[in-house]
């Protein structure tokens, strides 16, 4: 079970793996969480609401807190602000900058970085 991992994709829509990856992280509306097996194939996927979406300030912190709860190892979004970076780095969650394509396509593009 060592190489299984969860990857989160920031998105503004609820279209599962067809959701477009958002340019935002901290205030993105949702995260599509993809569970990968040892061979980096999709085992399961689900969507969660990003608590950072409603936050007045420190939205990225709330988002990171949620990702920690979900035990996410990697997060993908179009941009990560200063607060996002410091929190992700401290909590050892890897971040990848990418947006504008569907989650399924994004996953294909980043598999070698996982």
């Amino acid at each position, binding site marked *: 079970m060592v190489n299984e991992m969860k990857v989160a994709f920031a998105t503004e829509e609820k279209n599962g793996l067809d959701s477009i990856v958002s*340019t*935002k992280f901290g*205030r993105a509306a949702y995260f599509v969480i993809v569970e990968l097996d040892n061979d980096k194939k999709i085992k399961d996927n689900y969507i969660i609401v990003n608590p950072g979406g*409603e*936050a*007045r*300030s420190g*939205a990225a912190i709330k988002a990171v807190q949620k990702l920690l709860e979900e035990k996410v190892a990697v997060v993908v979004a*179009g*941009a990560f*602000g*200063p*607060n996002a*970076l*410091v*929190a992700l*780095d*401290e909590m050892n969650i890897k971040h990848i900058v990418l947006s504008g394509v569907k989650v399924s396509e994004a996953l294909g593009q980043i598999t070698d970085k996982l």
Partner: protein
Amino acid sequence: MMIEIAVASGKGGVGKSTVSTSIAIYLSRRKRNVVAIDADADAANFHLILGEDRWDWKKSYSDSMIAKIIEEKCIKCGNCLGKCSYKAIYIDERGNYRINPILCEGCLTCTLVCPVRGAIVREKVESGKLYRVNTKYGFPLISASLNPGRPNSGKLVTEEKELAKEIAEDDSIIIIDSAAGIGCQVVSSLAGANMVILVAEPTPASFNAIKRVHVLTKHFMQPVALVINKYDINLQMSDTLEDFAQENNIDLLGKIPYDESIPKSMASRVPVIELFPNSPAAKALINISAKVEYIIDNWHEWFIGHRPKKPEPYKPIIIKPMS
């Protein structure tokens, strides 16, 4: 492709809105699809420069909470009085404990230290309003205002951007007149922008302000351009700004001379490139706008040429347990 251009200055009063309105009008005249966002809710003046005095659409916006003391339940124990970090709690003429809504920041302290359950509650309060108007210059403008006493926030800017994206088309050019300062409302203004145009005047305060915004653009690895406004009020300082641009691979779009046409056109509620098109300032602004159009039409090349080569993330200090 949709292009998002953030216009920022780090401090108010240097001509940021004059530049952003001019670029928006110019591109719209050139038949581009433009969507403008005024993210400077503390001092929203994009619509004033355009002479718009009505909105097509407005919506209440809320992102803050305020604490309130329920008079009937309050036992006047005084526990909350000294503990509010913002000194927002006071006793009124009738001896009742009250919370000053202007000073209250909506944290949980008073509710926590109050011994009576339900004597202090938090409620959502309107922070301001969002607006939209189809301007007389052929493009829509999204704007916002803050209620007295309410601070600007990154969330408000994000909401404005969401509204803009809803009405934008695939080839729209989104122009964001950024919030002032360098706090979260500015980070939200810059995040996601394809390019940033810095506007500075030749003063030490303005130079310091754009240097701080520049740190954020390096964080987001955005290509940056510069406009120097009122350059001739201090030629030496203006040269310093030019040197800074050159050292940092920032594309100098142009320099605007001090010109009375600008305050005159503001007083008349007509943009300077409309009202005094042959004035020195208007000519400079039109040149700058034409350069922006050129950048958009040659995007890939310009982007590669001006994007920072290596990431320089800005990470705020974090205090953690020593391992």
